[in-house]
């Protein structure tokens, strides 16, 4: 049986070269170890594309909403005015029927 050979006392304080050198001895502008390039998640572009699609979709939605609100507003104004004329509260009706007795009355 082959006898194992001693390689001498084991240095218990052994540390890697990077650890033993201080920042002053080595280049302080690098960490002393490799920082590998990392790939982002394969779904990242899908998320970006979804956001871009949402941005493109927004003006169309906004246009639809604004046209709807204009139409609804106009219909509401016409409805209120027609109701007012029918019930006798229309401002137009008052102006037409009112007769002033004196010029001072017109001011007040």
């Amino acid at each position, binding site marked *: 049986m082959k006898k194992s050979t001693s390689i001498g006392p084991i240095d218990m304080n052994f540390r890697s070269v990077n650890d033993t050198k201080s920042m002053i001895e080595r280049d302080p502008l690098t960490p002393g170890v490799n920082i590998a390039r*990392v790939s982002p998640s394969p779904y990242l572009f899908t998320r970006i594309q979804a956001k871009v699609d949402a941005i493109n979709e927004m003006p169309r939605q906004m246009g639809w909403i604004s046209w709807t609100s204009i139409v609804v507003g106009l219909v509401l104004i016409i409805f209120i005015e027609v109701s007012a004329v029918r019930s006798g509260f229309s401002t137009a009706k008052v102006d037409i029927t009112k007769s002033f007795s004196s010029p001072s009355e017109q001011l007040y």
Partner: protein
Amino acid sequence: MSSTLYHNKLLNLEATYKQFGERVFNIALQYLRNVEDAEEVTQDVFLTVYKKQSQFEGKAQLGTWIHRIAVNKSLDFIKARNRQKRGGGLLSYLTGTTENVAQPNNDMNHPGVALEHRELVSTWFHRIDQLPENQRTAIVLVRIEEFSPAEAAAIMELSVKAVDSLLQRAKKNLIKIELKSEGK
């Protein structure tokens, strides 16, 4: 301008992302040391590129412009996080609660660093964080991302000489920071 990146003067976002996405993500990762945050910044960078493509005048290369946006967005993200921390701190002081307070991002989640080197690199990054913004950017671009000084100068809108000067000052400052941390 590359014809594959543009179609009828409109930016082909997918081709642009394929060409620059990984680099942008890695730049953000070197600043933030957190995968989720770096992905958020990358997303923000490409949305900005898409929205502001008409503002790209073609004076610089497209890559330089995109990388500049990546640097600025990363620095903005850090500032916003710090503001959140300060605001959160004030809020907790006023209300006497500790809820909704942004915790400091001390845990390094950088998959590019081997586990056995994580402590060493974390310490190094902690020292880098104490440098002024432009010195930090010079280190990230030239020493970590391995842009040439000329490329880094274009991204930072500085001269090559100015970038070299920033690196020299960063070196001196890092030595000072290390000596201070060792109590010498």
